């Protein structure tokens, strides 16, 4: 029973990690790549460490697994947020289909060049109009999502 459970968790964790790897290669811009890598890899690590805890079934090892899992779950969003903030402030370009850029109006940030001119100026822009102005909104990269 524990063998089946730990094997299942290992394979699920490995699948999530593979998904993270595919996401970081296929996603169109830095911020999407980052969310794919962070979320999928964190969940994969959680599954794998849980598999280790189930496989050994001792209190000391389970406690250590929980420690590492809690650490990864706490620090992964923090690291992603910090690096996203830094990337935005040095002006990493957004994907051309982005239509909501809420930091664009802030004075203290020199944001990235707006991908669509005025279309990305505010988050309140009617997305249908923007999509119509763009023609086909997400033709090339929709499969990556």
């Amino acid at each position: 029973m524990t063998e089946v459970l730990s094997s299942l968790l290992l394979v699920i964790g490995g699948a999530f990690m593979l998904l993270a790897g595919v996401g970081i290669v296929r996603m169109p811009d830095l911020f999407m790549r980052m969310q794919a890598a962070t979320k999928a890899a964190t969940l994969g690590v959680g599954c794998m460490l849980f598999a280790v805890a189930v496989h050994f079934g001792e209190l000391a090892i389970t406690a250590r697994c929980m420690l590492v899992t809690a650490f990864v779950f706490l620090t992964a969003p923090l690291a992603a947020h910090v690096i996203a903030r830094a990337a935005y402030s040095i002006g990493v370009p957004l994907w051309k289909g982005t239509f909501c850029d809420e930091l664009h109006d802030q004075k203290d940030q020199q944001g990235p060049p707006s991908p669509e001119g005025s279309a990305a100026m505010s988050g309140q822009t009617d997305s249908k109009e923007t999509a119509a102005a763009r023609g086909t909104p997400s033709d090339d990269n929709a499969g990556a999502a």
Partner: protein
Amino acid sequence: MTPWVMMRSAMPLSTMTLTDAAVTLALIMTSVAMFLALVRLVLGPSLPDRVVALDLIGTLSVGFIAAYDIATDQPILLDAATVVALVAFLATVAFAHYLERRARDD
């Protein structure tokens, strides 16, 4: 169970237990993911792309060590996983700090 990673020749499929198969599959998938992260590390058009790829490689290493733990029945390797997770996090935060400082200085 047999630590198949230590064996010199390939294990015949008939003697593989369920855990062996799962560990093999997990190690292969993690390795492929690590290779894809390496591709992004080499390609990455901007510096933050490379930092994200490095962070992903660190996280994947933790998972790889976890699978290797089960393969070799050595729970002591979990300490190495803790250290790798810690170092990856600190490296990412330090890179982000210097990136942001460079943006402010410009």
